[in-house]
């Protein structure tokens, strides 16, 4: 069982790295991009014996306590078999 965790900056938080990437994409010729935001992606592999509910509960807790800083970031958890 795998938990996928996506951590993104809150919309209100400035993302200077995303802005720089946006600029680079424009230099490549992509002119119709209105915004690029950078985030983080984590894959957590859990023991097979773990139920989907337990996996979600664990991943949510890890995301909240470690992977994301709730002052500046949001997170989303997906469970895949």
């Amino acid at each position, binding site marked *: 069982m795998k938990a996928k965790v996506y951590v993104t*900056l809150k919309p*209100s*938080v*400035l993302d*200077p*790295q995303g802005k*720089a990437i946006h600029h680079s994409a424009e230099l490549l010729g992509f002119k119709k991009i209105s915004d690029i935001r950078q985030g983080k992606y984590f894959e957590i592999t859990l023991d097979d014996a773990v139920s989907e509910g337990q996996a979600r509960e664990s991943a949510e807790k890890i995301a909240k306590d*470690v*992977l994301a*800083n709730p*002052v*500046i970031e949001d997170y989303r958890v997906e469970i895949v078999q």
Partner: protein
Amino acid sequence: MKFGVIVFPGSNCDHDAYHVISKHVGQPVDFIWHKETDLSSYDAVILPGGFSYGDYLRAGALAHFSPVMDAVKRFAAEGKFVFGICNGFQILCESGLLPGALIRNAGLHFVCRHVNIRTENINTPFTSAIDQRRVLSIPIAHAEGNYTCDDETFNELEENGQIVFRYCDENGEASAEANPNGARSNIAGVCNLDRNVLGMMPHPERACEELLGSNDGRDIFRSLTKAIAAAANNN
């Protein structure tokens, strides 16, 4: 009176802080390894600058889980003094001991130079010996020093006098040009509501000798020493 300098894997300003406390403050000081869990023999602890845990995940994020941090939280709750400098400030924010967060510099670069800061609140244990009219010249060296917080937190910081230092120009004007990293409202340092925990991005421990370009940092350590002596007299 006894100081402790906490050493995380990747701290690199621990010796500078130790040097300033022993040589310029003239008080006993120990290095405290991050696995230590008893801080009861100390009056103040310094979380020094550096790159704890290689800045993995977010600057300061993993140091929050070092065993010593539970002890630091108890230490702060007892009203003892906790001083985070640069990476130490990032660790205090990640640990929830200070409000807000420090994100990537707006200009993306690692900025390493002397900046001017002004003292916004001299009624703290860390600033009482500072002449508020004076602009302090203190070096910064960071890539994640861009202080951010939501509007509600910002208003609370303002109302409670928790904004302790702001970046400014040589005349003391907190202008956009004088802001080295995009920090909200030029914030360079904040304290907690009880004012016994301070975090700042500039490095006062690197500004205690004329030879290094400035000794303006001494007033901060002088203030802290006075506060510890006063607290000891009250007990």
